[in-house]
């Protein structure tokens, strides 16, 4: 018994919200003396009309899928993991260590091992906050914020003092051996007469991210662990009644969450940079919060929200390339999209519901 059809809630509301965000963004662009139409044109052209544009859009999407899923798992267990950023950093460290120190015969094996390493490192970084929340009642929001700072310090130390090749200026590891290089979309799809995805960083980890979405869906809605995670998230007292251990669920959910955040590093570190740099996560952990919330913690929603943010990132890069629009404008546009689709959605939904109810009354 809903007030409006599911399709309207899933399609109409977000579309109108995005439209509102776009209109407001256009006003901001006008205010700084540029043409909104040209800007939109550039963004669409650059992000969606060329295969290399897609290559970038999907590259960013991959990052946001992982961090979005990371936040979403924790949300299902009613925890707010702000620590995706730090978990991804440490996940990157795991990737770097295996890629640098294990001689791999083939990228596929490297990918498998690196995935495991990324997930384990990320999960371990989430373990302490999870344990403290479960056993000591320390609020996970504080501890994960703190662990972001600590991760940055760890990474800084390791990259400057331990893994940096002698004499290099860059606080980064050496480039990984060729055998660990992941196939990019260009290598997979480009042909001699059709140079698709030229130079763009999208790579096999995108498929891993899609797989993670599917796995996430199965995990949350098809396994008993997911059943327990959601139950715990909805009601801790009921979970206890059902014999679901709060400690276990808290820790397991955070391990999965941290693992997913860690896996984001596969894309940036192994897929794109092919070395670990200091700034590899660049705030994707925080974007993940917005992605998870906008995607309503559902993998399909997360995928779409991640795609939207991927588009904004790549479209924004095109704007930065060909206009004098400051890069902060992109931040403002992101803010408006988050605000309208995520927080002000009821502003659109309420009148729509009224319209649908009225038509239904008239017909019924």
């Amino acid at each position: 018994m809903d007030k409006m059809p599911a399709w309207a809630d899933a399609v109409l509301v977000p579309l109108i919200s995005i439209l509102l965000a776009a209109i407001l963004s256009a006003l901001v662009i006008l205010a700084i003396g540029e043409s909104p139409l040209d800007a939109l044109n550039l963004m669409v052209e650059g992000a969606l009309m060329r295969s290399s544009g897609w290559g970038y859009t999907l590259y960013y999407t991959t990052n946001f899928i992982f961090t979005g899923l990371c936040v979403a798992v924790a949300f299902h267990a009613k925890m707010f993991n702000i620590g995706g950023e730090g978990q991804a950093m440490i996940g990157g460290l795991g990737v770097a260590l295996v890629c640098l120190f294990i001689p791999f015969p083939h990228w596929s094996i490297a990918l498998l091992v690196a995935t495991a390493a990324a997930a384990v490192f990320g999960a371990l970084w989430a373990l302490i906050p999870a344990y403290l929340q479960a056993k000591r009642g320390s609020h996970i929001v504080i501890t994960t914020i703190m662990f972001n700072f600590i991760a940055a310090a760890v990474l800084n130390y390791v990259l400057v003092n331990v893994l940096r090749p002698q004499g290099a200026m860059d606080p980064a590891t050496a480039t990984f051996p060729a055998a660990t290089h992941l196939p990019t979309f260009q290598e997979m799809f480009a042909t001699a007469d059709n140079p698709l995805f030229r130079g763009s960083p999208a790579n096999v980890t995108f498929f891993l991210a899609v797989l993670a979405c599917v796995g996430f869906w199965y995990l949350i809605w098809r396994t008993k662990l997911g059943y327990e995670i959601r139950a715990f998230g909805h009601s801790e007292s009921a979970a206890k009644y059902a014999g679901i251990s709060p400690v276990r669920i808290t820790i397991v959910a955070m391990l999965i969450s941290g693992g997913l955040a860690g896996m984001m590093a596969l894309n940036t570190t192994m897929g794109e940079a092919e070395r670990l740099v200091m700034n590899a996560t660049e705030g994707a952990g925080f974007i993940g919060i917005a992605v998870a919330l906008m995607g309503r913690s559902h993998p399909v929603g997360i995928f779409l929200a991640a795609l939207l943010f991927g588009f904004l990132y790549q479209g924004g890069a095109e704007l930065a390339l060909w206009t004098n629009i400051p890069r902060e404008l992109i931040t403002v546009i992101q803010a408006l999209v988050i605000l309208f689709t995520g927080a002000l959605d009821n502003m659109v939904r309420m009148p729509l519901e009224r319209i649908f109810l009225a038509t239904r009354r008239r017909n019924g």
Partner: protein
Amino acid sequence: MDFATLLQVLDSTVRLATPLLLACLAGLFSERSGIVDIGLEGKMLAAAFASAAIAAVTGSVWLGLLAGVVASTLMSGIHGLASITFRGNQLISGVAINFLASGLTVLIAQDWFGQGGRTPSLMGSGRFEPITLPFAQALSGVPVIGPIYAELISGHSILVYVAFLMVPLSWFVLYRTRFGLRLRAVGEAPEAVDTAGVSVVGLRYAAIVICGVLCGLAGAYLATGLQAGFVREMTAGRGYIALAALIFAKWRPWYALFACLLFGLLQAVALRFQNIDLGGITIPVQVMDALPYILTVIILAGFVGKAIPPRASGEPYQKER
């Protein structure tokens, strides 16, 4: 550590704690009313920019302060619209506000001043100058108490004293006034407030405005008290630390004071003793840098019990499903 060093560290603690304290109290009012606010960072940033910009243009720090408060309150208003009127997700709204402030401040600053997203440096009356309290000079000779008064207590900008006075004031408002009673009630059981004939929406907006004003003071202090102008992203994560302090303080004013002083102290210590030599081994700067955060986690895990937020916080008040 000798006495003089101790005083210096404490002095630094006070300065570092002040913006945290103001933001923390801001968050306290908001969350006590049931509105979770992770947008403290953005509001502070907006206020820092607006106060510096207006102070630079008018040469009056007071007008700057006013502008900062207005800017921050506007941001609060957006948060209120989203989370109270339209019953949206409070976390998303907070995230959006942080993004919005981060982008808009630089965008406007660049458009306005053309100095790369900075405001011009503030001079003279464009800044809050340190205030020398009465007898500070005369008393400084008195052993122990003298230096404490003259160096630690005296010599801060007015906003520092405002911030510290805000603690008893907040306590008084929350626990001794009608408004405070209703505010605390609306964060715990909005339906109780509603059925008692008091407007939930009105109370929550009031809380949001107070939150905006306090964040405005925090931002203005950063840009016009501690610094002499705005630099992009100059809040540098202080809003998040304030949020942590708020949880640490279990949403209580006096505890908030101690939590913020603790965070300030940890940071001051980390800054002051960055290069400690332990028998030939220099502790890496990264360890000292992370120390405040590590200690926070340890203190939290070791000494602070479970922090239970106001029961209705984060949930929009909705009578009809």
